[in-house]
């Protein structure tokens, strides 16, 4: 309980460091939250945003490959990430906001791996 509390607290405080080079709301809609569970198929540890891709089964059983945007590598490193944190084949849960362009794209707010909440250096809530 105490551990969860401090993890939550540190995520809350670290959020202030996140930033981006585009306005969050020009690409994503905070009123359309998504939660995705699936298998990581690709990781692009690059600027200006780290992207990773997850195969997610929809309600009909069809598998869709979702693209997830996070912050820059430097922002993620400040939250404890490394370039090896996510690997192809990892099973993850992702909480985020859907893209406005209607594709299988979302801005990740939190990534969970092995039950651990890892943040995503997202610009959501920063209005960046």
């Amino acid at each position, binding site marked *: 309980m105490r551990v969860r*509390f401090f993890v939550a607290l540190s995520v*809350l405080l670290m959020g202030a460091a996140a930033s981006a*080079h*585009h*306005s*969050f709301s*020009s690409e994503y809609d905070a009123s359309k939250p998504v939660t995705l569970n699936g298998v990581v198929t690709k990781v692009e540890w690059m600027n*200006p945003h780290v992207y990773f891709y997850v195969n997610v089964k929809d309600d009909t059983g069809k598998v869709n490959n979702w693209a997830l945007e996070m912050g820059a590598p430097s922002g993620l490193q400040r939250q404890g990430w490394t370039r090896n944190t996510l690997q192809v084949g990892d099973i993850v849960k992702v909480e985020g906001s859907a*893209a406005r362009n209607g594709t299988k794209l979302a801005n990740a707010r939190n990534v969970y791996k092995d039950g651990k909440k890892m943040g995503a250096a997202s610009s959501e809530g920063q*209005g960046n």
Partner: protein
Amino acid sequence: MKLRLIVSVVAIAAAFAAPLAAQRAAKPSAPTPHWPDGRVNLGPEPGGKGHWNTGVGNLSEADVKMDGAFLVNRADLDKVAPFQPWAKALVQYRLDTLGKDDPHPRCIPPAGPRQFNTPYGLEIVEQPELKRVLILSGGGSRSWRTVYMDGRPHPTGDEVNPTYYGHSVGHWEGETLVIDTVGFNERFWMTRRPTGMVHTEQLHLIERISRPDFNTLKYEVTIDDPGAYTRPWKAGWNVPWTTEEVEEYFCQDNNRDLQHLVGGTAE
């Protein structure tokens, strides 16, 4: 249970944040560093490290309530700057469409005041032997501006070649670096906040940069653009120092924003 946890996290975070903020405010910064000849040092001390941690800062004449790059109250736009009608209409459109047309995510340089509120850092490097100051942007397209300190005049007439960063000349007024810039093109948005602020090729900036203490860069700018505003106006903000080095960042690297920037309609 979950609700109680969230409530307690928020309450305790708030309780922690207030004293921490007070401590930060109360803890005196180290004094403004100087070079042996007495000039203010606008960077790290010899052997030290760090840079200016840009990202905050709102280009507005009056304090207005912001939600990131956007105004909370539409009516506050008149408090931001003395717009000419066309300029106000264009900024309102850009706000209403959620900044979807911003050139910056297309990796256009963060010129003008935007150099001082673009994320991923800023360094001010003096080259006194060359009579130049370089202002290096860590974010965006990772570009820089040269400020000529040798007394040269601005180009005039057909010599003017409008560019993103324009033509900057500077001098010291005591502890303040004063930079005068003209010759801007119109292909960038001159601030990150509020999004969409307009300018024309008539833009003339006077920037005053000082370091009141080790951890603070004070940025003040006068915006004189008779093409877009009814009179010159001022804005400014403080940029905090961080002891981390600037990390490599290139907007051009894996930029997928072109397909994603669809904007929308503000409520």
